């Protein structure tokens, strides 16, 4: 037994001779909210389809709950709730009947229907045909469907697509509360880092089908440490002088910067500059946002 509730090994998918997903090793721990990030077309949805058995991997294996997806698909899927890309629904049926078609296949008590409708706040509209729903309501119905079977693992592909800010906020709170209240593990994909950042405990970043970062959200944040930028009248000279004094300064031909250092060090740098008659124009902190890191990691082609 290992600790991963979901694990892929060298997962690859070739489509038309092109590797859409390439050697992906996804690892999701029990109780994680795993943010699966990547620009549009990076292979997120293809990966998720393979996780649900909707598409077959060209190479590689998938283990969920420690079981091989190829061999025990049905018992795994019984405990996985999913929402892929856009919500699925039968437009001519109302929300209750929509959920009932799924409930009959999952064999959970009928009372679950009103429970999940309550969770996504659709009780009021439950008797209306779904084709008259707004996109946000359909999305909420999709989440209700995913929750219906009391899953241990929720796989949500871009669940906030098409929602207004209030709806996004609501779904976010709901997702954050799930692991706490029901012990559910969540894999949630998005092309928006800002959205994932507020709920994920772990992130995996994928671009061009390859995983380029996979760690805790704190590890990602650590990469976003602030730097101090100093602009002075004669920067190169100042740089040499400061280095000679053993102070940690960087010079890249245009900017004089100091990495993350204590206030004390910054103070001695400024003091040294003033003593040597340099004009100090600015001392400012520069923060690299996670957004910038994301762009940098994904090679700047992230559509954000």
């Amino acid at each position, binding site marked *: 037994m290992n600790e991963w509730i979901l694990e892929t090994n060298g997962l690859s998918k070739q489509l038309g001779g092109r590797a859409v997903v390439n050697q992906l090793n996804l690892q999701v721990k029990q109780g994680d909210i795993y943010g699966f990030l990547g620009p549009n077309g990076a292979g997120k949805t293809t990966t998720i*389809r393979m996780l*649900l*058995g*909707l*598409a*077959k991997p060209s190479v590689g294996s998938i283990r969920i709950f420690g079981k091989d997806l190829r061999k025990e*698909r*049905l*018992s795994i*899927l*019984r405990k*996985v709730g*999913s929402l*892929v*890309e*856009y*919500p*699925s*629904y*039968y*437009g*001519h*049926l109302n929300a209750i*009947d929509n959920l*009932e*078609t*799924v409930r*009959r*296949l*999952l*064999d959970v008590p009928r009372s679950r229907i009103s429970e999940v409708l309550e969770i996504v706040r659709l009780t009021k509209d439950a008797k209306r045909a*779904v084709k008259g729903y707004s996109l946000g309501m359909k999305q909420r119905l999709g989440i209700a*469907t995913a929750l219906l079977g009391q899953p241990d693992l929720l796989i949500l592909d871009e669940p906030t697509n098409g929602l207004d800010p209030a709806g996004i906020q609501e779904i976010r709170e709901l997702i954050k509360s799930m692991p706490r209240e029901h012990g559910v593990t969540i894999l949630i994909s998005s092309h928006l880092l800002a959205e994932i950042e507020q709920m994920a405990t772990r992130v995996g970043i994928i671009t061009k089908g390859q995983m380029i970062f996979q760690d805790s959200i704190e590890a990602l944040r650590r990469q976003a440490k602030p730097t101090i930028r100093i602009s002075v009248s004669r920067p190169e000279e100042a740089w040499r002088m400061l280095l000679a004094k053993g102070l940690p300064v960087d010079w890249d031909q245009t900017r004089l910067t100091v990495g993350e250092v204590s206030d004390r060090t910054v103070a001695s740098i400024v003091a040294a500059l003033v003593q040597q008659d340099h004009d100090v124009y600015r001392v400012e902190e520069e923060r690299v946002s996670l957004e910038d890191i994301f762009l940098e990691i994904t090679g700047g082609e992230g559509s954000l």
Partner: protein
Amino acid sequence: MLALIRSEWLKIRRSVIWLLLLVSPGLAGLIGLFGVREEQPGGPFPWLIALALMTALHAMLFLPLLTGVYAALVCRYEHAGGGWKQLLSLPVTRTRVYIVKFLFVMGLVALTQLLFLAVLLLIGTAKGGGGAIPWSELLGSVGRGWLACLPLAALQLAVSTAWSSFAAPLAVNVVFTIPNMLVANSADYAPYYPWVQPLLAMMPHQNGYDFGAFTLPSLTLLSVVMGSFVVFFLGGWAYFARKAV
């Protein structure tokens, strides 16, 4: 399997399918009502002539068309709202999903056939033929017509699962159904033409329809029907089982 049938039933229960069921028996009924004359006034009702007359419209045109419509309809609500990916990411096997869809198509064809029979019986009894109903001919015709729809249903279901458009499989079906009246005249080609098989199967023998493919022994037809059904069904199933959703 039972859970799938119950789930499928819920989707189909509230759809437009029920109106369609009435179309063909209704139209055939009109023909039977106004087209059949007793040979002499007050004579016995000519059951087989009525059957042949009504079959000419029902089995030549509407039955093959409706089979295609039913196949398209049981796939339509899956294609329309992204139902396939939801359905197939639930704990169900694709084989069972495909079989259940097929059962529903053939179930609807069976209902159509029963309605057709009911309309024929109603007209005949109303016209005074109640005493001498040729049960074996009538039931045989309706039953054979249902069997002859098996390969067509399998073919149309395969096409309907493959194409997400609702109209495309129907267009194909119409294009191949229209030539029925020509194909039926050829003893060489008709038995192998899935769209005309219901007509050949339902038409009563020795009623003036003794030309073209109508003189074929029913055993020949049955073996072609069953053979092509197996091929079409396995082909459609094999495709569906591998399809990336």
